[in-house]
């Protein structure tokens, strides 16, 4: 029999690929699960370790810097990550200390670096004897400087709440497919199967699970009774406010959560064009619709290049632009974003967003509504973006939005993680003069 599979070593390899080599968490974990079939228990431990180290990297890295007499050489970088995996367990998990240390130390063997056992053991034990003092708050340290700076400038009053929330495990939120049954009926099914679940106070189709579960364990998930979607994303449907019989464009639709919500709400009474620029993501979108037994006209195209795809005569009654964005409002759900996004990316994204707004505005019917949204909390992508758009479009009028759980800004509404009980989303509604 081969030696025991060491999940800590696997986690060290995975986090190195994500943080040092820029691979996405959504690519690394599934490919790892494909290479090694893990028991459910090891699988969830591995996931916990990888997510945790990505979230708390800045803090753990600062601790490691103080515990190591000299930095671990670059060619042994996996060991550095193994040490962070060990520190994460000691600092943030309930794992028994001796088990956390022993398993992490024996991870050296699986990485073919048995010589480093003493080093890792020494660092972890010295941490247990006397944890080093950090120079700043741990959650603050766990955000790259440029992100921390941008968030602090944008939200000085809320900064601390935001970074704390970004480093917590988010709740698992569901959206009930109204076509298949009511939220109360689904809650009843969940309770029967001993899920601890509550009706979401901020979304009429939403449910919040007290503890995350694999989707395959949810009643009738495969049949399309329910989807996983954060509360903040569920607001889109109400704020677009489409009416029966209207023509609707969902310009950046994949992977299809909000598209599906529109169709679930309005049955077959919308003429919906769902576009996405990526062919691969269009497949995801189609798969989402198939599972939920919904139908839309899916088009693989760059929405802003309106010459490249067909529109209905006279344009659309409603246009939703779920714009590509930095994702800085969803750091708690995607702990790899903070390691990959750069300040230069934001400039690029702002330009892409502007191109979509400008390109699609002519397709909106007079009197029609355009809903612009991002999962960002940076003003440049949100309030300032709409401010600039209004300045250059005399026929665009701001429609006031309000929601019990959002800040009202001059050009839209904003939810903030840690301030509101949801991801950070921005919504703005523009109406075209008749």
């Amino acid at each position, binding site marked *: *029999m*081969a*030696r*025991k*599979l060491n999940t800590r070593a696997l986690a060290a390899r995975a986090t190195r690929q994500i943080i040092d080599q820029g691979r996405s968490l959504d690519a690394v974990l599934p490919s790892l699960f494909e*290479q*090694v*079939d*893990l028991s459910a228990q*090891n699988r969830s431990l591995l996931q916990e370790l990888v997510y945790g180290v990505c979230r708390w990297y800045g803090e753990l890295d600062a601790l490691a810097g103080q515990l190591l007499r000299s930095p671990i050489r670059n060619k042994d970088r996996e060991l550095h990550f193994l040490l962070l995996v060990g520190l994460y367990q000691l600092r943030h998990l309930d794992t028994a200390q001796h088990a956390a240390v022993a398993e992490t130390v024996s991870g050296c063997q699986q990485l073919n670096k048995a010589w480093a056992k003493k080093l890792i053991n020494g660092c972890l034990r010295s941490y247990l004897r006397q944890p080093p003092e950090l120079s700043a708050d741990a959650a603050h340290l766990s955000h790259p400087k440029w992100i921390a700076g941008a968030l602090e400038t944008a939200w000085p009053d809320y900064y601390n709440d935001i970074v704390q929330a970004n480093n917590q495990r988010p709740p698992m939120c569901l959206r009930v497919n109204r076509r298949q049954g009511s939220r109360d009926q689904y809650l009843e099914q969940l309770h029967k199967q001993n899920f601890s679940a509550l009706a979401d106070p901020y979304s009429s189709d939403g449910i919040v699970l007290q503890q995350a579960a694999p989707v395959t364990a949810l009643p009738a998930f495969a049949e399309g009774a329910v989807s996983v979607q954060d509360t903040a994303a569920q607001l889109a449907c109400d704020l677009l406010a489409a009416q029966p019989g209207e023509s609707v464009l969902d310009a950046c639709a994949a992977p299809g959560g909000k598209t599906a919500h529109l169709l679930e709400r309005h049955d077959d009474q919308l003429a919906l064009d769902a576009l996405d620029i990526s062919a691969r993501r269009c497949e995801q979108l189609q798969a989402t619709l198939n599972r939920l037994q919904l139908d839309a006209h899916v088009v693989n195209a760059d929405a802003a290049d309106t010459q490249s795809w067909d529109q209905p005569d006279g344009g659309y009654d409603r246009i939703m632009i779920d714009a590509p964005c930095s994702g800085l409002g969803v750091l708690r759900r995607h702990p790899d974003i903070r390691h990959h996004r750069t300040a230069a990316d934001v400039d690029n994204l702002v330009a892409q967003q502007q191109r979509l707004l400008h390109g699609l505005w002519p397709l909106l019917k007079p009197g029609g509504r355009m809903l612009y949204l991002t999962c960002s909390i940076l003003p440049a992508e949100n309030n300032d973006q709409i401010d600039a758009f209004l300045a250059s479009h005399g026929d665009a009028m701001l429609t006031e939005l309000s929601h019990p759980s959002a800040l009202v800004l001059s050009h839209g509404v904003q939810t903030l993680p840690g301030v509101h009980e949801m991801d950070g989303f921005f919504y703005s509604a523009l109406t075209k003069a008749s």
Partner: protein
Amino acid sequence: MAILDILVYPDPRLRKVAKPVQSVDDNIRQLVRDMLETMYDAEGIGLAATQVDVHKQVIVMDLSETRDNPLVLINPQIVEQDGEQEYDEGCLSIPEYYAPVKRAESVKITALNPEGEIFDLQADGLLAVCIQHEMDHLKGKVFVDYLSRLKQDRVRKKLLKRQRAPAA
């Protein structure tokens, strides 16, 4: 002492059924020493004679971190087993692959030691898993036999590909 070649799945020789050892003599003791050296070299925690193409009922194991606590089972027999556990198993004949397998939580066995003396052993947890895993080898069985057909095909293809183009 010598490091022996370990057969790699899906080698048909892994399917041979091992015969009981008639007398525990110097040849067997030499085999045990070679198998231990081979197992330590491959950084395994257990090795059955079948895996080195010797079809006799001999198993070596060492579960200790310090790699200095060998256990040798000759002609092992399970006399009692109880409970159930699932463990992510790996095998020196199926390199770099792990998958969960359900086995008895505890086993009681009898076997001969390298001096030819009979002894009893009560094992649970990983030791019980390892004993059952190695005893399967002696019957011509490997752990992937417990997995779905789909997974078995995937492993077989992966390993055949590796053998055609050995990693540098």
